């Protein structure tokens, strides 16, 4: 047992790869067999990650979730700001500018609204719950955009870990509601053609939420929604820690 924990601790980052991989397998199985593909494996994995962080925090009394357990310190490196920003930037490589033109002006409007509107709503909810500093309000507002924009923004402007955790949870919760809720409201919001699917993708953001929700509604609409949704995170990472943060700061002060 001692030898085992020594190996795990000595290879911290490798241990983290193995641990996260196992978590992804479990999430894949839950997604397939318990939700019948309704909820994306990635969303389940992030929720499990947050749940583990909760129990890890209770067990160790620390502030860094499971990364406070000696065997799992590698999680701290793997999920730290350095590798996170690296991997998120890499996703931009799949953005096809020629494809982007297809979405046109209506896609751009949807993207803009899809970033600003949830942000404002998130900021107001944060204010209602007593987060009155610009950094926390911006981070929670960014979390309402997507679960990536939230922590990227929070890290960039120096938010505390509990606030960043809140912003991740908000974004994941949003993605899950989109996945489950879309088929039920599809008819009401006119989600039966490529153009509305592109508007939907731009407004909702999170590729996992959009592709999951559209797949459950009408498989043929998925590529159109994913087309605009892929720009959502990039746009959010660009404007949330800059223009939107300054706007919040200008209104509420430091």
């Amino acid at each position, binding site marked *: 047992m001692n030898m085992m924990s020594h190996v795990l601790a000595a290879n911290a980052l490798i241990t983290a790869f193995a641990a996260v991989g196992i978590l992804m397998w479990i999430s894949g199985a839950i997604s397939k067999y318990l939700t019948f593909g309704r909820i994306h494996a990635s969303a389940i994995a992030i929720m499990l990650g947050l749940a583990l962080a909760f129990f890890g925090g209770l067990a160790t009394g620390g502030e860094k979730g499971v990364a406070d357990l000696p065997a799992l310190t590698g999680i701290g490196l793997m999920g730290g700001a350095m590798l996170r920003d690296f*991997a998120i930037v*890499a996703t931009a490589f799949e953005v096809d500018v020629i494809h982007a033109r297809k979405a046109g002006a209506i896609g751009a409007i949807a993207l803009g*609204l899809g970033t600003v509107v949830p942000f404002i709503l998130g900021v107001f909810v944060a204010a209602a719950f007593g987060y009155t500093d610009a950094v926390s309000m911006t981070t*929670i507002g960014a979390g309402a955009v997507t679960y990536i924009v939230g922590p990227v923004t929070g890290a960039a402007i120096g938010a505390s870990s*509990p606030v960043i955790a809140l912003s991740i949870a908000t974004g994941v919760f949003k993605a899950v509601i989109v996945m489950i809720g879309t088929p039920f409201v599809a008819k009401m919001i006119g989600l039966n053609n490529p153009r509305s699917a592109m508007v939907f993708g731009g407004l909702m953001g999170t590729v996992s939420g959009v592709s999951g929700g559209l797949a459950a509604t009408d498989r043929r609409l998925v590529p159109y929604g994913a087309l605009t949704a892929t720009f959502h995170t990039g746009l959010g990472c660009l404007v949330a820690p800059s223009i939107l943060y300054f706007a919040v700061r200008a209104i509420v002060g430091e």
Partner: protein
Amino acid sequence: MTISGVALLAICTLLGGLLGDLLGAALGVKANVGGVGIAMIFLIAGRLWLIRHGQLSHGLKTGVEFWGSFYIPIVVAMAAQQNVVAAVKGGPVVVIAGVGAVAVCFAMVALIGRLSGRVETMDEIEARELIEANVPHFKSGRIG
């Protein structure tokens, strides 16, 4: 070479981070202003440049795409190291902001759809394409 892709990604990330910090300093805030977003723009521009000059090799693509495909696992690791115990005290924020954001966005989808007039539905498009089946057409369905 795979390393050229990883290096390109690294250079873009570093440049973005540097410009984000500089922008923050210029604006008088202790923050990285949009560094990740700026880095993404560099990478998109870099990819376009490489395609235009015929330099986008398979190895280079592999190097960048590996890290891109790694981002969900990294986000899971990030979630697993947050101070969730402290965040749980603010629980209702998550539910209210999440539900609110989705509800407002659903409404906007409906609104934009109504304002911009009627278009062919997916069923109508397929029906028309069936009639025009003798005319060659191409369909792409790649999902990101």
